């Protein structure tokens, strides 16, 4: 049995920030991540980030992991290539390193920063080789230097769809079009304008009807949608592409939290089932905190701040200096408020309002 004061599950932007913050407050931290390197999705984000200086705005995502670990590194034990596979209400977790090192962890508190998984889309041909999730395209291309194909249809004009389209162009891959079923572009318009300048058409109110091909994707059929999201007859067109990339949203990865008995609630604004938590990111299990996309899907900048918030709150619960923890908590809450304060944060604000009441109401 491995004992630790604080266990952080996941070494992406939220988990790294959480571990660093708790460690800087004197807490002994064990951080486990299933990857072979730290950073989670950051290692694929070659673009410069938005936000403010405190969110590492203007820095490329790939360069952020090293900035997140600044103070408490010597108090953190990192265990990579390790997947937490069970979480029990008696505060014991089970984990697997590689394929054969199986062990138990007994923490006094835990922060789950397990992120989110990609949603899929139902259409004929979606099982053909050449149909990818946007995360897979980024992994292949930005992490391993392998191009997914020559010509891509991107499905989804949220930030992920338009940023990955831009990265494809940078890698020398053609983007035939970006289709988006909603009437407006969901991602930041400045990102969309980059694609427009590169001559990539963004087709709102359009969807994919099918991917076609014998052994792999050879073309994709798209069509226009009317006000009721129904296909406009006769609007079908076939695009010659060898890749269909799906960027149609993310769902929080809450399985372990459910197993641990944390209450969840379906909040579409936050990506699906999310753990009910309070303003300190503590779940209905008082030893478990959440941070990042698992707590509700939003930008990586918010994930980092949530990590700091959860890290400070957990450290306070574990006996760290109250004034120092409170200072970080207040700063992080103000920072989240600023990030979510504008029109693009409205959906997140309404989603979180539904959640934070959850514990009191239950």
């Amino acid at each position, binding site marked *: 049995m491995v004992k630790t004061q604080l266990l952080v599950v996941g070494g992406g932007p939220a988990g790294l920030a959480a571990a660093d913050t708790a460690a800087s407050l004197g807490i002994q931290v064990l951080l486990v991540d299933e990857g072979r390197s730290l950073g989670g999705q950051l290692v694929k984000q070659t673009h*410069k980030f938005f936000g403010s200086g405190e969110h590492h*705005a203007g820095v490329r995502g790939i360069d952020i992991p090293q900035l997140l670990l600044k103070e408490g590194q010597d108090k953190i034990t990192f265990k990579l290539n390790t997947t937490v596979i069970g979480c029990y209400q008696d505060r014991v977790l089970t984990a697997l390193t590689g394929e054969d090192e199986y062990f138990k962890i007994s923490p006094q508190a835990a922060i789950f920063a397990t992120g989110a998984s990609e949603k899929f889309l139902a259409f004929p041909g979606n099982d053909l080789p050449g149909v990818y999730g946007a995360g897979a395209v980024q992994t292949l291309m930005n992490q391993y230097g392998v191009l997914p194909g020559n010509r891509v249809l991107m499905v989804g004009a949220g930030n992920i769809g338009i940023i990955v389209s831009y990265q494809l162009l940078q890698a020398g891959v053609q983007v035939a079009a970006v289709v988006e079923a909603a009437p407006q572009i969901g991602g930041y318009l400045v990102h969309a*304008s980059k694609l427009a*300048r*590169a001559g*990539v058409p963004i087709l*709102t109110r359009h969807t994919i009807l099918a991917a076609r091909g014998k052994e792999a994707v050879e073309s994709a059929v798209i069509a226009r949608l009317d006000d009721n999201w129904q296909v406009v007859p006769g609007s079908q067109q076939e695009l010659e592409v060898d890749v269909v990339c799906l960027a149609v949203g993310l769902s929080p990865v809450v399985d372990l939290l459910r197993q641990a008995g944390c209450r969840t609630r379906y909040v579409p604004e936050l990506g699906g089932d999310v753990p009910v938590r309070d303003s300190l990111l503590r779940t209905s299990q008082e030893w478990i905190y959440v941070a990042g996309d698992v707590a509700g899907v939003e930008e990586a900048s918010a994930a980092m701040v949530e990590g700091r918030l959860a890290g400070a709150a957990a450290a306070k619960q574990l006996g760290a200096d109250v004034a120092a923890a409170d200072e970080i908590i207040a700063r992080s809450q103000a920072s989240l408020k600023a990030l979510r304060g504008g029109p693009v944060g409205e959906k997140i604000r309404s989603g979180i309002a539904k959640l934070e009441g959850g514990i009191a109401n239950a």
Partner: protein
Amino acid sequence: MLKTTGVAQKEDWQAKLPPEERRKAGPYVVYECYQKIPCNPCEKSCPFKAVTIGEDINNIPRVDYDLCNGCGVCIARCPGLAIFVVDETYAPGYGKVLIPWEYLPVPEKGSEVTAVGRDGKDVCRAEVVEVRTARNQDRTVVIGLKVPVDLVNEVRGIKLGGEDNGR
């Protein structure tokens, strides 16, 4: 249109230009930032404090054109690549546009490229008259294009993959 295609329309970008007399006085910055998103690196980047976002980082940047001298330091600091510098006084009949560029290869100074508009369509041929690659630009190159002066606010990019585009 901007919200459905990503292409800013004339009425959108015209509202971002400084007054006529400032335009004739020398280089000026154009912030093609139309949406309230949480972002403010431009504000800190300006050595002349000409750009203001303020307390709420969702505010759209405001430019004081009495303070802005069109130096272009902010161009590579914008994660949205939404900042351009325009000089309508560059040479008789010609203006210069500074654009951010994050593709390879980087066009060479002195070469000719096809300049494109906000919609990616060809606008004109243009000479590359400047290539800035300072370390603090963090791999965002800033390229100066010499274009006919009446097209300085139409040109916003370089055609991708053109075989004669300075490559």
